[in-house]
């Protein structure tokens, strides 16, 4: 998106802000009006892979386990207790007395049917890595189930608290994913009362929501979710009082919305990390990056703390390793840190034989202002980066086809709070691995398949240490998410990019 596409509307907002009257908020009819900018192709949580779908899923359904976003502790939800039976078997005691929105009682049959259905490859659940570790689920009695994993899978609980929601077996068997999308039925704090694909999802508070749920009881009666693709239109609706809450507000726009009297802006860090990929494997299209001194120079060239202040947002944090710090196993302890030091960067380049710098293509697909800042820093030490800006899919293809060897990647880990969902994607010889270091791979593999937390931690730490030592990537920062909402609303953002509207309340 060219800069004028965001800057002009931001200026317009600033001008309009002066004339805005206090909005007619949804407080009056106890209806929270929110907008998403993307349409989930299906509301069935297993058949979409966009953020809006993930957010809806957490409102309509519940999980066996709930991860408290404040402490990152796992708390009982639909399961009251769980234990590891052996390396590949987990056992869950299920909560009694929970009812689905259609009245169907929740028990072992629901868990077994849901997990067995979504984990079968032929049912084509959209994000296979969320379910393909499941070998099967078995009913032990009406309120006890066992989940078998194909290999030891230490992150299982994290997935069961994230992407894996529980469906009513009788209803799901009857209507399938298509019916579940048209008329979703869950146990969650909100139930869908109306769904117009591509336009509107109306939800009503679940009056029979189970009282021991770790999700605080919702106080807002209705949530109307409208689909408005244009962020400027969303901002206009928010200012005009047609909406009460929007998210993913761009930094410029957020600054302007802060000036509007009846609105609040909150910024939260997200689990999405940004880092520079530098291809060093044998098919690397950028042989210059095979020299470790060049990679180190690039790490030293960028002033990341300054970027947070100017273009990223101060709710973000500087990263030293390629993972999100809150993820289990993510650590920068002992990992080499590259301070901003352009003189050292130049010296390293000179040592590598590039005293006059070099030209290189630089690929990116989002956050253009940040990318341009990075290019500025690279130029300052003599690296003449030529920007190739494209859509995400095109970027990914270029990396996978060994056409792009130098660029900025971002990764949201599907909100899975375990390092197995981030670093291995880029360093375990999968399609996006442009370094292919055997030592790193073996360490990551040890971390991914051990059930002993201490063993995992050490393995990941050493893998991350090796990546930093070799400067295979230049970790940048986590990316913030901005929310804009009416002053009448109390809303708390969390770092996992998952707004919990059931916690929101009118002031």
């Amino acid at each position, binding site marked *: 998106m060219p800069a004028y*596409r965001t800057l*002009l*509307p931001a200026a*317009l*907002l600033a001008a*309009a802000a002066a*004339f*805005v*009257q206090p909005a007619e908020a949804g407080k009056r009819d106890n209806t929270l009006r929110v907008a998403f900018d*993307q*349409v989930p*192709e*299906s509301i069935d949580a297993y*058949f979409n*892979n966009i953020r809006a779908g993930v957010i809806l899923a957490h409102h309509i359904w519940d999980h066996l386990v709930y991860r408290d976003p404040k402490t990152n502790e796992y708390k009982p939800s639909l399961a009251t207790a769980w234990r590891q039976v052996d390396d590949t078997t987990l056992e869950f005691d299920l909560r009694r007395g929970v009812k689905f929105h259609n009245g169907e009682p929740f028990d072992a049959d629901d868990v077994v049917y849901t997990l067995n259905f979504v984990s079968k490859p032929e049912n084509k659940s*959209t*994000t*296979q*890595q969320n379910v393909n570790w499941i070998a099967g689920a078995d009913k032990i009695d009406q309120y006890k189930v066992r989940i078998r994993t194909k290999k030891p899978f230490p992150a299982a609980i994290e997935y069961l608290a994230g992407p894996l929601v529980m469906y009513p077996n009788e209803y799901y068997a009857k209507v399938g994913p*298509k019916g579940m999308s048209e008329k979703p039925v869950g146990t969650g704090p909100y139930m869908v009362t109306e769904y117009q*694909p*591509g*336009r509107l999802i109306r939800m009503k508070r679940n009056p029979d929501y189970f009282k021991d749920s770790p999700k605080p009881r919702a106080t807002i009666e209705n949530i109307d979710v*409208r*689909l*408005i*693709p*244009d962020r*400027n*239109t969303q901002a*206009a*609706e928010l*200012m*005009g*009082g*047609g909406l009460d809450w929007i998210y993913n507000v761009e930094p410029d726009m957020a600054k302007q919305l802060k000036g509007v009297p009846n609105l609040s802006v909150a910024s939260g860090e997200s689990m999405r990390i940004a880092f520079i990929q530098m291809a060093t494997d044998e098919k690397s299209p950028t042989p210059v990056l095979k020299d470790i001194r060049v990679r180190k120079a690039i790490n030293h060239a960028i002033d990341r703390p300054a970027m947070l202040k100017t273009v990223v947002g101060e709710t973000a944090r500087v990263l030293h390793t390629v993972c999100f710090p809150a993820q289990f196993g993510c650590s920068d302890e002992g990992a080499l840190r590259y301070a901003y030091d352009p003189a050292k960067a130049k010296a390293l380049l000179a040592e590598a034989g590039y005293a006059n710098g070099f030209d290189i293509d630089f690929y990116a697909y989002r956050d253009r202002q940040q990318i341009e800042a990075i290019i500025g820093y690279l130029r300052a030490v003599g690296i003449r980066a030529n920007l190739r800006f494209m859509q*995400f*899919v*095109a970027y*990914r*293809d270029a990396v*996978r086809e060994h056409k792009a060897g130098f660029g900025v990647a971002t990764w949201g880990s*599907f909100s899975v709070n375990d390092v197995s969902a981030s670093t291995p*994607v880029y360093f375990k010889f*999968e*399609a996006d691995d442009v370094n292919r270091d055997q030592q790193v791979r073996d360490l990551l593999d040890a971390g991914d398949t051990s059930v002993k937390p201490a063993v995992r931690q050490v393995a990941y730490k050493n893998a991350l240490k090796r990546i930093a030592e070799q400067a295979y990537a230049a970790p940048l920062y986590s990316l913030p998410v901005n929310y804009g909402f009416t002053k009448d609303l109390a809303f708390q953002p969390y770092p996992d990019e998952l707004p919990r509207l059931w916690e929101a309340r009118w002031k």
Partner: protein
Amino acid sequence: MLQYALKRSVLALLVALTVSLVCFLLVNLSTDVATAMAGEGATAEAIDSIRKQYGFDRPLVVRYFDWLGHAAMGNFGDSLYFRTPVSALVAERMPTTMILGTAAIAFALLLSIPLGVLAALKPNSWVDRLTLTIAVIGQAMPTFWFALLLMFLFGVTLKVLPISGSDTWQHFILPSIALGYYATPAIMRLTRSGMLEVLESDYIRTARAKGLRNASVLFKHALRNAVAPVVALAAVQLGFLLGGSVVIETVFALNGLGYLAWEAIVHNDFPVVQAVVLLISLVYIVLTLLSDVANAWLDPRIRIG
């Protein structure tokens, strides 16, 4: 006349075929469709299996004729994203776009014909300059920007019209103005030049000499003749507007074909992209054909020359 109409129809069909080919090639050559479908984080094996399952491993020519054959029967396949037949999606979204297009062209005509007449009555006066300015602004201002201006004025500041959505007829007012304004300059300039030419002609002088009232000369005699080519142009402009609805529908969150096209582009839903591009082009081609034929029918010089 019939021969002329036939000739134009064959030409239109050829254009339609070319468009279908270009549209198919652009989508299929711009990205590896299988990788796009597999989504973020997909493995190489997953991508390969998609390639086989959907037949993307077949030669491009085979795939084109396969697609064209089905498209001719109204079968555009299934949407990759919504997992429903593309034809059903299109049928559901079409009415919104048609309402928007019609309202926009109506707005354009209502604004530009009177202004064009005014400009022609007082050529090179301040009135003429003013209408020219309006025309230039309409041509120069990006539609998304004009749309935002309208939104902020009528929706945010004055709060007299809804900002986005398509629930009531009021929701269509701002988008129709934003979209229709873009077509205004061409229609206005054509009305002006048509009127100028007609007002100079002998029969108008005769009409005046007969002592007819000014209004009668203007509206009964002059405008009727001057406006004929405008109608033809309006038909073509309507085609343009339908294409422009991608931006306007996205900005105003109207659930029409343009919005569908945007969603499809964002999600790499290429069967939908192909179908929408082809349909909008077809509407455009048909409108152009109709206006050609209508023009020829009105003016024999065209069909003979």
